[in-house]
């Protein structure tokens, strides 16, 4: 997973749920002006906009100007990095039917190519709209666990047939 590009904004949510403070915005503009090896098309324009209007350009509007988004959603305490049209494979949810639309509201990170907003612990729900549809609730293939201790006359075979719920991410939008 790509981790080393220059213009990421990181901060603890002291004042806002957005997870970005004013100091982080200044940090962003400082690093991108000094770094040499940056892709020119992606960071050139954000650099100028941030340095001239860093106090008025909110992080969410910078994110909104990008093209494609991803989100790290937390479902049943597990993180799933999703984009639109993805299929999420979960353990079986007992209380959903086929076709139900689930709104995801525990989002740890919301990002794009150049920017990311990290929630502390979650991003405020007024900045996104993420929905997933239950498309299938299949049974998985038999998984065999084989345990053996040699020369001790001990071996066990466990078989499980996992139950899953498949969710299709039908909507992933960033609202400014």
């Amino acid at each position: 997973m790509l981790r080393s590009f220059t213009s990421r904004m990181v901060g603890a949510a002291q004042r806002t749920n957005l997870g970005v403070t004013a100091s982080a915005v200044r940090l962003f503009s400082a690093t991108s002006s000094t770094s040499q090896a940056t892709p020119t098309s992606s960071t050139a324009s954000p650099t100028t906009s941030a340095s001239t209007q860093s106090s008025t350009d909110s992080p969410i509007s910078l994110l909104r100007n990008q093209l494609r988004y991803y989100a790290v959603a937390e479902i049943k305490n597990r993180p799933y990095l999703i984009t639109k049209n993805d299929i999420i494979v979960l353990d079986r949810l007992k209380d959903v039917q086929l076709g139900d639309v689930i709104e995801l509201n525990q989002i740890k990170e919301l990002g794009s190519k150049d920017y990311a907003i990290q929630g502390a612990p979650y991003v405020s729900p007024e900045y996104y709209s993420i929905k997933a549809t239950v498309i299938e609730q299949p049974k998985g293939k038999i998984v065999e666990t084989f345990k053996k201790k040699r020369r001790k006359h001990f071996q066990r075979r466990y078989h499980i047939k996992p139950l899953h719920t498949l969710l299709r991410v039908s909507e992933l939008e960033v609202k400014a």
Partner: protein
Amino acid sequence: MVAPMVHPVLKNGVGAFIPQCRRLVFHYCERSGSSRGMIEYLKKDLIQFAKEHPHVEVIVTPRPSKHPVIRGLYLNGKDKVVCVRNMEPTDIAGKVALLKESSGNRMKVFKKPVISTTESVRGIWSPFHTTPHKI
């Protein structure tokens, strides 16, 4: 020269959701004992199921001297067959729900938590586009 068939990329659930189970066929034998639970299910629970799922075509056909069987047909043309011999109506209802909720795809091991065809949002890592190492 005939133009090649173009198949659309289907993403069930994004715009509209279409349930994948198209038809359920119930076979039973009127005489044999293994169909006893099946006949009870057909009398008690099947009509309620058919009303709740109008998108599924339900067919009930006697199949003499054979074990009771439920055959599910799906939108991708594949079918799944489940033998319900000597099962109670509650167990048969569970098998019906299993067939109704799955698609025609084979059972498989899901290795990754997210199945995605979109290219990565942040791009592939490149050593030429990182902050230079400082000593």
